[in-house]
């Protein structure tokens, strides 16, 4: 009788759980995140002789932008291709991890103590250089807020400011405005 009662309770629980779960409100659709299609550099040049603001884009930057917009991978560099495929990058990393692990085991088992030290030093050196390369590639320069911090002073002085910029594709704004330039400047 006790078991039957427990079973009934369980059935009731399951029966009520489903409608309760179904009654949960749908999650709100997340707003469209801006998609970074290209990272390039931007130079802001104050020109006292000009009457119109101008945007100059180099031929290569335009081609890269066009390729990024059309999602064509034909003219991408190897680095861009790697960046655009996270699955492949992850698998490459997994295989590299396995390779280095097995290489370490093989070294420990096969090479004599003296040779081990030499090869370990070589491997360590290679790893340090590799790590430095990765850091250099992954973080080429300080963050944008650092490079753009002197923009107000430079503008007032009439000198050029140079820094990195991400070109993002965003949904059409409701106010009908065109391009927007967001500069990371902290108020002093």
């Amino acid at each position, binding site marked *: 009788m006790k078991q039957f009662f427990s079973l009934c309770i369980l059935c009731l629980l399951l029966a009520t759980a489903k409608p309760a779960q179904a009654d949960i409100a749908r999650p709100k659709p997340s707003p469209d995140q801006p998609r970074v299609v290209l990272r390039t550099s931007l130079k802001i040049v104050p020109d006292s002789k000009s009457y119109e603001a101008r945007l100059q884009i180099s031929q290569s930057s335009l081609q890269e932008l066009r390729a990024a917009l059309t999602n064509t991978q034909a003219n991408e560099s190897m680095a861009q*291709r790697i960046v655009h495929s996270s699955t492949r990058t992850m698998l490459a990393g997994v295989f590299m991890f396995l390779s280095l692990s097995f290489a370490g085991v*093989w070294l420990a088992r096969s090479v004599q103590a003296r040779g081990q030290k030499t090869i370990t030093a070589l491997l360590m050196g290679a790893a340090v250089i590799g790590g430095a390369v990765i850091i250099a590639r992954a973080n080429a320069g300080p963050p944008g807020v650092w490079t753009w911090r002197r923009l107000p002073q430079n503008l007032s002085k009439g000198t050029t400011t140079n820094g990195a910029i991400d070109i993002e594709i965003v949904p059409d704004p409701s106010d009908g405005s065109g391009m927007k330039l967001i500069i990371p400047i902290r108020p002093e």
Partner: protein
Amino acid sequence: MERTANIDLAAWRPRKLAGSHPLTARFFVGLLICCACLSALLASWLPLQFSVITVFLFAGPHNWFELRYFLMRLPVRFGKSRNFFLTAFVGIGFLTLAYVALPVVYAFNLWPDYAWPMILASWNTLLLLWLGLLVWLRGKQKPKQDWSWAIPVTLGLCSINWLAPEFFSLAIVYLHPLVALWFLDRHLRRTRPAWLRAYRRCLWLLPLLVAGMFWQLALTPALPDDNGLFWRITQHAGAQLLPNISSHMLVAVHVFLEMLHYGVWLIALPLIAPLAKAADGRHTLRERGRIWDVKTLPLARHPRGFPKLIVTALAFGVFLVAILWIGFSVNYATTRDIYFTVAIAHVLAEAPFLLKML
């Protein structure tokens, strides 16, 4: 049994043969240098035309000679190498079928375009893991040597492959012709060790010739690839993947390496093989030089061998060569596409037989 089958290649008296045949090391080296220089010259001069001609003339026959060579190297009984050969044949079959299926799948448009690099990388990974397994199995047969380095190397290559699968496939296109030179090296070591040093010195000519071609052709304008055939040839050489390098140079280097590859299988190895075979004293040099004589193959000659099967395989090979020539005559571009797809089998087959010679 396996040892019995390999006696022909192991038993060798170079001194006796050196005096019994007019072919000298100097003649061999001269022939090698002349062939290499002539190939580089012709490939640089008219790369597209010579690509068409060499594939038409030599692609099929060189495969037949490779088949014959592999049959010569195959033991009558696998013995301790059973696992190695089983892995080799299963791998060749599976990878070939998968490779041939790729263009068919592409034609049916089953996967989106962006997925193809991953599919290509997956096939390359399977190839590398298969090669790594073969090296490991071969290493197990050599207790005095440690071949376990193959595992980290294989995994490292897998990693590079996943970063740039298209470039990895292109590397196979350029590296495969060089495997023939390695075969020749191992064969000379067994049969004409006195020539080995001279041969290895000749190999230094190869990077010099490639560097010379690079120097001469780096700034040449791109080859006209306005028709389907020429476009296929430039794509095969990697013109799309390496847009900043002259397609003239890419095709020329590829044709040059292919010509060397064909030269090794069609001229160098048959030239040396009869000499090697005559050492046992059971057949004269002339008899041993007959490529049609299946009795020169241990697999057919051995009392427990398969002479009928070998005859059938070689005859079928001749038939396929004839079919290939007819196909090239009727529709060269399509036949070339089909050939280079199916020919992956011979690229794969070279790996286990080369490993067995190491």
